[in-house]
């Protein structure tokens, strides 16, 4: 555990459906997030201990995730429980994947950046009903994205947790900032308040604002498409 370890949002809860795995990154470190069939969410190092294959390419069956390469199966604690090529083998307990602490709050999946912490500090975010909007991936450094958000009349909701409230287009949005990598940032955007009495209008407006925000931030509008004549025909 280092002094900089902290909780970060890495996905919207509703985008990680039961039985699905996905890859993501925190400070360029590859991470596998997956949801078991009982709804539990897990964040692991994205490496199968066997051959180093990314586990996020794997598939979830019940409360286990299996590697796409050779089908090694891991339980919700990251322990290998079954090796298909040695079905009789009592799998040694030390074959295990490194796991990150992981919780859900505000419709987002949160990961603590320190590996194998027994008791991470409590995530200091109050529970609140929200309506998910979208995740937005930006080709820019996290600090730039956070500054641009703050410029949109943003208020820092929680000092340690990269969470901002912003008012745009007559809407109040809550935005979680994920430092994806040196040159990439993800924003996880939700509307405070639940589903009741709302159609898709507010979410569409929020999503359109997000697209505009991304275009402005990345420079000034989408680049022109290259003329198709630059390519040679595919075989």
């Amino acid at each position, binding site marked *: 555990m280092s002094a900089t370890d902290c909780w970060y949002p890495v996905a919207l809860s509703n*985008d990680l459906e039961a039985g699905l795995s996905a890859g993501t990154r925190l400070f360029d470190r590859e991470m596998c997030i997956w949801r078991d069939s009982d709804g539990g969410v897990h964040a692991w190092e994205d490496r199968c201990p066997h051959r180093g294959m990314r586990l996020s390419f794997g598939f979830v069956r019940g409360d286990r995730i299996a590697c796409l390469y050779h089908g090694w199966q891991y339980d919700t604690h990251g322990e290998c429980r079954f090796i298909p090529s040695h079905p009789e083998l009592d799998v040694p307990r030390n074959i295990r994947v490194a796991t990150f602490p992981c919780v859900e709050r505000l419709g987002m999946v949160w990961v603590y950046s320190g590996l194998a912490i027994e008791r991470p500090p409590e995530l200091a975010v109050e529970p609140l009903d929200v309506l998910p909007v979208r995740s937005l991936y930006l080709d820019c450094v996290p600090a730039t994205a956070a500054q641009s958000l703050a410029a949109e009349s943003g208020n820092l909701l929680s000092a340690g947790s990269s969470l901002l409230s912003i008012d745009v287009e007559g809407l109040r949005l809550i935005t979680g900032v994920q430092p994806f990598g040196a040159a990439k940032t993800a924003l996880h955007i939700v509307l405070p308040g639940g589903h009741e009495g709302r159609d898709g209008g507010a979410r569409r407006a929020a999503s359109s604002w997000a697209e505009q925000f991304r275009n402005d931030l990345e420079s000034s509008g989408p680049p022109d498409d290259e003329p198709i004549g630059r390519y040679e025909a595919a075989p």
Partner: protein
Amino acid sequence: MTALKLYDYELDEQCYKVRLLLGLLGYAYEKVAVDVYPGGEQRSARFLRLNPLGALPILTDADMVLSGAEAILAYLARKYDGARGWFPDEPETVGRVVQWLAFAGNNLTAASTARAQALFEVRACATTANHAARRAFRVMEDHMTKQQFADAFWFAGNAATIADIALFPAIALSRDIAVDHDEYPALRRWMGRVRTLPGFITMPGIPAYH
């Protein structure tokens, strides 16, 4: 014996579009393997007579000869899908489906080009093609994000059409051009839906799981 004959290359995602629709329709056909790489057989005199562009897929149905994945999808859907679900008749849906077919045939060409460069030694500017491919995937991601707000879980509405089939391979195979799926959560969910369609078939690089 079926009259349908598909001139096919297993690793070509354009051919896969046709194989996928025929799988979903459960329709029997004859598959003729063409030596695209390294042979370049699709550019031989024999195949240029079928398609002067020297490209696959090519479909023959008795005297009918068609080339180009999107045209073949439209033809097969109209001729062999009695329920018309894959290419519905309503003008609004026709417009949306054809818009996305054109997108698949134009904007996603960049992804095919980048993949051909990576896999088959086709000369192309990989950086330029990769950039254009990512831009096209973003347009798809933004669209499917908004579709979900209207409880429409497919590209042209609330049912799968040939537009979904034409768009699926490029993003499903994007790891061949070093583009991860991390940034496309709405497309990830949609790809999961495609994979669970009855009759779904795989190709090298597109596993059944998920």
